[in-house]
């Protein structure tokens, strides 16, 4: 083989889409490793993030590789972690703090809402907050109280915050790298029940990272979901297909800003929609999704947008969480209600 042929093959290999099989935990860990390697201003910190590598091992090995100045443990105080992130951002750093569990974002809510979300505004754009707050989120692991909450609607309601949630390892890897590269604060909600499922991660090309993603095309109805509910909706779609119902599954990914065009395109085609989330029903993000769909598709909708969600109750104990989180049957029943709807 001539030298020039070798060079061409190598170049081809380098540009070819490469893929590895990783769990979401491994994908997030690899993304953080690369962010730390590529951006000397990045700092990763939180409770047990250093020596231990985080309770979910998302930061495993990062302190050993990048040093205790870049990856470090903080005292056990969420307001402190987030307030400190503001000061680090003011000093030119790109903080990636972790709040160990969703429910422990509440003790930091003052710093998140009154400070992180507003500093760019208050300072007229002179003090940007390039903070990516990682929050292991949602339920499904039979954990203690405050370890299974869905805070997306609360965060999405706050001016100045952006909110994203990946549903699979590929998106986890690419969305984290993307979020960390942006100049605005991003709440990065990791579906903790999906940390250990493996999937193909294309490491050379992340695809489009800014909007929603059709994970299963279909003709009859759109299931809109995010985080851990996407995998469940895919299961539902397979079951519905056995009955001849062709379900499209739209992974919203960005919960703020919401990809209104993707909703319009998908539901414009299917003319029916069910939105699925773990969070309580009332004032949940499903209401916002339903309104966006209604706004763009009112004339062609075959039925009102249905919501299949958690209930207006505190997130229950592990024995009851399967009753609370939308399960396959409840989603199928939601689909049935939409399909059977007749104008009165």
């Amino acid at each position, binding site marked *: 083989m001539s030298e020039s042929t070798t060079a061409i093959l190598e170049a081809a290999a380098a540009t070819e889409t490469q893929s590895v099989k990783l769990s979401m935990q491994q994908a997030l860990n690899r993304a953080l490793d690369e962010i730390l390697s590529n951006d000397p201003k990045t*700092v990763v910190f939180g409770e047990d993030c250093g020596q231990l590598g985080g309770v979910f091992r998302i930061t495993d090995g990062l302190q050993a590789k990048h040093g205790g*100045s870049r990856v470090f443990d*903080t*005292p056990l*105080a969420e*307001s*402190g972690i*987030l*307030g*400190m*992130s*503001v*000061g*680090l*951002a*003011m*000093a*030119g*750093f790109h*903080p990636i703090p972790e709040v160990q569990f969703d429910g422990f974002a509440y003790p930091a809510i*003052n*710093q998140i809402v*009154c*400070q992180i979300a507003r*500093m*760019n*505004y*208050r*300072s*007229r*754009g*002179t*003090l*940007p907050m390039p903070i990516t707050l990682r929050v292991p989120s949602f339920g499904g692991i039979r954990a203690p109280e405050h370890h299974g909450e869905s805070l997306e609607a609360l965060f999405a309601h706050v*001016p*100045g915050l*952006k909110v994203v949630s990946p549903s699979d390892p590929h998106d986890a890897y690419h969305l984290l790298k993307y979020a960390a590269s*942006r*100049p*605005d604060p991003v709440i990065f909600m990791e579906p903790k029940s999906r940390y250990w499922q493996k999937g193909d991660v294309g490491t050379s090309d992340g695809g489009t990272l800014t909007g929603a993603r059709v994970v299963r095309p279909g003709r009859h109805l759109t299931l809109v979901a995010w985080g851990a509910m996407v995998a469940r909706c895919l299961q539902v779609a397979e079951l519905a297909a056995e009955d001849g119902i062709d379900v499209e599954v739209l992974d919203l990914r960005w919960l*703020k*800003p*919401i990809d*209104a*065009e993707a909703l319009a395109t998908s539901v414009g085609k299917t003319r029916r929609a069910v939105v699925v989330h773990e969070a309580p029903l009332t004032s949940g993000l499903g209401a916002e999704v339903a309104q966006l769909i209604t706004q763009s598709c009112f004339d062609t909708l075959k039925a009102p947008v249905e919501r299949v969600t958690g209930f207006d109750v505190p997130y229950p104990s592990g024995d009851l969480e399967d009753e609370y989180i939308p399960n396959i049957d409840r989603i199928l029943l939601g689909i049935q209600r939409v399909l059977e709807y007749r104008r009165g």
Partner: protein
Amino acid sequence: MDSLLPVVAAADAAPLSPGQLRELYSLMAAVRYLDTSAVAWQRQGIIPGYAPELGQEAAQVGSAYALDTARDFAFPTYREMGVARTMGVDMVAYMSTHKATWHGGMYDPVASRLAPIQAVVAGSVLHAVGWAHGQTLSGEDGVALSYFGDGASSQGDVHEAMNFAAVMKAPVVFFIQNNGWAISVPTERQVAGGSVAARAAGYGIPGIQVDGNDVVAVHEATRNAFAHCRAGNGPVVVEAMTYRRGPHSTADDPGRYRSLDDERIDAGTDPLERLRERLLAEGVADEAFLTAAHQAARAEEEAIRAGIEALGPRPGNEMFDFVFQETTPALENQATRWREESEHV
């Protein structure tokens, strides 16, 4: 009260020179004049509200005078006009927050080395810790100066900030202006134990209580605290005991919670008067200097007032423009609709 742990004295701990003492007086006079004028501006309808710092001139000027704007950074609340003036911040831009022009003030916080004004008491104390830890990570020698009051010291964020700073040995000076009152609640019903500085011992860091109405004492304590931080010894708590001689804000009525007799007794000697007597007694300044300082303060206030009166409202599109560095389609749509509806396009 003595510090429980020693503060490393400043290497250049020479006494303030006569020129510096006169400069402190000029600064305090300028702050006094602007502060009392701002209350009048509110009464005249020039500004909708103001939070006076009457009586706290020594605490604010003396502490901020220790800050090096080439490398340090200050984190104020909403009653730090004297700090801003001492740091050389554009005072029309600073006072614009009280004109209701822009919440954080119109000054550039990065160039000014003064974080935006904000109303959550203790909200910025943790920011000072983060910024200071950033200095450690970058190998730089800047010190964060965190301002808060006795009321804010009740907030949990103050504990988290002091604990974080002590654990990380972050170069932060926690500067408390204990002015006796959190709106209507006196210190004895706010600060258990009577001293915020005393808490420092629990964190294993130095805490100093200082006469907050003595500008020289305040300055020396703060200067020593800065030297302690800069030498890599971690944070220091400085509690300046002072007195809020005015109302909490121009909307407050102190008559509902303290009498004029109480004020006269508790306020002690006016800090500006104290410095005046000292300068005259020590022969550092004469009446001509003092008169000139007051004339300069008056001229400065007139220029600032003219600037404030000339300040129009910001264009409405700025409501949308500064939410994000990278705006969103939804926000763009709202901005477009606002423009169309407000301008009847």
